[in-house]
């Protein structure tokens, strides 16, 4: 079977002022793969994700979505439709119901007819187990439900890839599971996902690869077994050990 490359990042650099945050990041994702990025705070994980859909343009390097170079494309809004983004603090539109949050990209960006968009929105809400909450506003939803709406909103655009930036770290512990379950189902259904998360149980059982990033570089990447059982770098062992200690194995 030939693997179809969805995302390829080559030698990404990014500085804020004279603070160099990303120092040559390269990675790639094939269709249907799930990769989890871990690393200490301030390492540049969020910056890297924001580079991928050009919310923060990189200084140097290339980013390919399939065969389109995202860094030089003339139609950024088109590219962004193809890259889902799920935020730590949800980023739901507070003046719209759950359904309308999921719909608005379809009607306003894809110019889909209202009825068709509403049907698709309900389909995606059902997929994350929220069809009963379609008429509720974000303020009326729990954190876990908000994040599931956030995921449904991304899914509705039929993206080629979804980026997750610590999707569960703003949640109360008892609400993390419901979000991880949805993500696990997506992985099983063949969605291509790049996930920044410290949920080690999830990373271990669901991801195809774990990417350990520190100080703007990728220290090591490999299958969960390899990184947990036979890491090449002492630093990887240390960090993963500490994380597993902190967050436990739960949620997988």
């Amino acid at each position, binding site marked *: 079977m030939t693997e179809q490359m969805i995302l390829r990042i080559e030698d990404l650099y990014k500085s804020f002022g004279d603070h160099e945050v990303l120092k040559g990041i390269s990675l790639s994702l094939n269709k249907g793969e799930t990769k989890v990025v871990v690393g200490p705070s301030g390492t540049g994980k969020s910056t890297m994700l924001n580079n991928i859909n050009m919310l923060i343009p990189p200084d140097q390097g290339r980013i390919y979505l399939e065969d389109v170079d995202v860094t030089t494309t003339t139609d950024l809004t088109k590219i962004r439709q193809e890259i889902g*983004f799920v935020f730590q603090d949800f980023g739901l*539109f*507070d003046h719209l119901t759950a359904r309308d949050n999921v719909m608005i990209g379809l009607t306003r960006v894809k110019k889909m007819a209202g009825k068709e968009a509403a049907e698709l929105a309900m389909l995606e809400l059902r997929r994350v187990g929220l069809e009963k909450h379609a008429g509720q506003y974000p303020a009326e939803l729990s954190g876990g439900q908000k994040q599931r709406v956030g995921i449904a909103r991304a899914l509705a655009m039929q993206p080629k890839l979804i980026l997750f930036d610590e999707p569960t770290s703003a949640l109360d512990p008892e609400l993390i599971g419901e979000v991880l379950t949805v993500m696990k189902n997506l992985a099983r259904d063949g969605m291509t996902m790049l996930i920044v998360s410290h949920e080690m149980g999830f990373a271990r059982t669901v991801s195809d690869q774990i990417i350990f990033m520190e100080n703007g570089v990728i220290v090591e990447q490999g299958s969960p077994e390899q990184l947990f059982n036979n890491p090449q770098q002492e630093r990887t062992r240390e960090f993963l050990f500490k994380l597993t200690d902190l967050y436990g194995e739960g949620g997988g």
Partner: protein
Amino acid sequence: MEGALVTLRLFIAGLGLGVVLGIPLAFGQIYGNKLIRGLIAVYERVLRSIPLLVILFLLYYGLPLLGIRFPPMVAAILGLGLRSSAYQSQIFRGAILSISESQLKAALSLGMTGIQAFFHIILPQAIRIAIPPFANEAAIVLKDTSLAYALGVIELLRQGYYVMTNTAEPLAVFVAIGAIYFVMTVSINTGLARVEKGLKIPGIGVEEGIG
């Protein structure tokens, strides 16, 4: 009664001018470069720090020395409008900035343009957030129309004054004048409160205290 109409005209034109100037000022403060932001900050600080009566005198008695002459009514509207624009710009700016950055990022990452994100995401929320302070500002502008008295505009207060000199009934006349202002202010506030209620969405605005 004619005086009441003049007062209403002053109010609508003054508040309207405040909106028309206040919105671009708010934009300039948020999206402008350093120079624009600095100039707007000075403009606002000056207009908010000078009594309205002084602003009116400057416009009416001061500007003619520079060759710019306005009829009293126009000077009064300008004064009310300029001063109100300084406050309104703060109201609009606050409302726009109170919408989380992550909602803007989410809108852009769906593929919206900046303009779409503004009109579909930021504006509908900002309007709701701005209504209560805007109602407050409207009440202030309405009451301050009475300062046009000092430029000789025959608005509600001055007309009341004429009636008083004719009837020698100061108590009755000024109670009536006060009552008219009261009714106008209350109508404006209830009108805007009704708009606010009509647009109410859970989680947006202050009453509920949740976000």
